[in-house]
């Protein structure tokens, strides 16, 4: 089966820092792929390169056979790629409904307003957000904001959904719920998902395949079980401040999210 997304030998520098150093990985249609690594490993940068917010210094990103690096950032969503943001990037002064409607911007013309509204409301209901539709997004609880971001992404009708630390800042109950939500949306919308997450229980339980970055390089790839047992991966996590326990099970610890670029 040909890959839906394939990142090929992508490099991205920030001054002296190699945020991505010849990174390659691929995602098959329908898969949930985990992308993990300690803080600063380059995960968010990978999202930003795929969605064209940052140009890559070299390499290719193929989506359904097309080189995304030739698209301007605002065209990426029309290819069928939607994302959420590590630190939540909602429109604070707009209502929840309006936020979600922006998700439909690219696929609705100037005449599609009524249909877009109906679909946005439907998606809000799907994620149990219906009663918040007319509230301003600013000031709602963090977990709710993350869910609204998810709704905005879904309304764009993506084939590929990029989730940047969706569990960051959520409590245990919310994380359990999120796990169900991710599975459910994959099934209901026949989505492919790329999941960046520090919450190891979550990544390991929902991912079909896990890719590991460290200091901008890909150090491992495999099934959750393989990655969990990979000595280099354990080493990477031990070497960082993220995890203190010198055991394989350290990967199961919950690790706090960091504050990176978008």
């Amino acid at each position, binding site marked *: 089966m040909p890959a839906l997304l394939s990142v090929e030998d992508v490099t991205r520098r920030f001054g002296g820092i190699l945020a991505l150093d010849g990174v390659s990985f691929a995602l098959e249609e329908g898969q949930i792929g985990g992308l993990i690594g300690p803080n600063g490993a380059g995960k968010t940068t990978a999202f930003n390169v795929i969605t064209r917010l940052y140009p890559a210094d070299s390499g290719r990103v193929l989506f359904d056979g097309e080189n995304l690096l030739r698209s301007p950032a605002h065209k990426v969503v029309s290819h069928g790629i939607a*994302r959420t943001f590590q630190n939540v990037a909602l429109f604070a002064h707009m209502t929840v409904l309006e936020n979600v409607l922006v998700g439909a911007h690219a696929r609705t013309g100037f005449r599609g307003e009524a249909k877009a509204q109906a679909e946005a409301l439907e998606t809000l209901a799907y994620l149990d957000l219906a009663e918040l539709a007319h509230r301003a997004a600013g000031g709602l609880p963090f977990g709710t904001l993350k869910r609204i971001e998810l709704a905005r992404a879904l309304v764009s009708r993506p084939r590929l959904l990029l989730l940047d630390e969706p569990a960051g800042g959520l409590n245990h109950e919310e994380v359990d719920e999120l796990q169900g939500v991710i599975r459910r949306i994959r099934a209901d919308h026949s989505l492919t998902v790329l999941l960046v997450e520090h919450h190891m229980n979550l990544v390991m339980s929902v991912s079909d395949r896990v890719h590991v970055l460290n200091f901008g390089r890909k150090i491992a790839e495999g099934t959750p079980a393989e990655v969990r047992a990979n000595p280099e991966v354990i080493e990477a996590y031990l070497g960082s401040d993220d995890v203190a326990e010198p055991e394989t099970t350290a990967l199961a610890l919950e690790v706090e999210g960091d504050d990176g670029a978008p």
Partner: protein
Amino acid sequence: MARAARSTGGVAPPSSTPLRRALSAGAVACLVLLVLALPVLLETRTYELARAAEYAIAILGLVVLVGFTGQISLGHGAFMAIGGYTSGVLMFHTGVAGALTIPLAGVVAGLIGFFFGFPALRLSGVYLALATFALAVAVPSILKRFEGLTGGSGGLVLDVLAPPGRLHVRPERWLYYLTVSIALVLFALTWLLLRGRAGRALRAIRDGEVAAVSFGVNVALYKALAFGLSAAYAGVAGSLLVIDSGFVNPDTFPIELSIRILVGAVVAGLTTLGAIPLGALFIEFLPIYSQQVSQQAPAVIYGAALILIMVLLPSGAAGLIRRLLSPVIGRL
């Protein structure tokens, strides 16, 4: 400043309940009636009220730009000058009636604003403020150079505005109703535009460019379009200013005019179209009353009043209206 002034408050009012919709429709209808009756109620102030309506159009343009896209302009007088001179030159050289030149004045100013909008993208905050300020300084003196067309420093003396045909209306009333009709149409159009997809895209850009781009908003295009639209409104206002003055010269559009429009926008609150008329009345009448209070130093009174307003109403008249209405609206 733009940032501090913008606020939707904690709760966004749901605009969809039928009762609220009926009430706001009723309120708008009452306001429109009041606006139409004003020259009868305030006979002696008709001319000033027409001026205020011109300012309201220019402020509307600025609010679209500053309040809805987060860009700033200290130089909207430049676009007013472009619109004003478009009308002046056409009237002077072709003898066409002033009112007929207004659409073209808007289009010319709008196109120039649109193309100015692209380089403006690379600037933000103070830099954009300075660039637009420079534009306001430069445009009148550039226009002055085309002496054959624009009459140089002396400018052009134009026909005084007269009601068309045998319409027996006093000229200032004709001016008032012309200006107010244009203003109402532009307000309605803007309101329709901003509540739909395009307005959402603009507000999305203001609140978070990265997320807006990621969901397909062409930020460069929308910002330039907003600049163009904003400039078009300024052009229409400038055209009306020239038509009612009966002449145009570089001094018709001093830099002070740009600042005055910005003051009006800030006083109105930058986010709510409904409060714009208050901002317009403020910048038209406060200088007149300042003059009456103190012959020696009207600017001091003007400045003091402005500071007082900014302190007491940090989110402008819009904020005040919201605060006054929220106990009422909250119960509906």
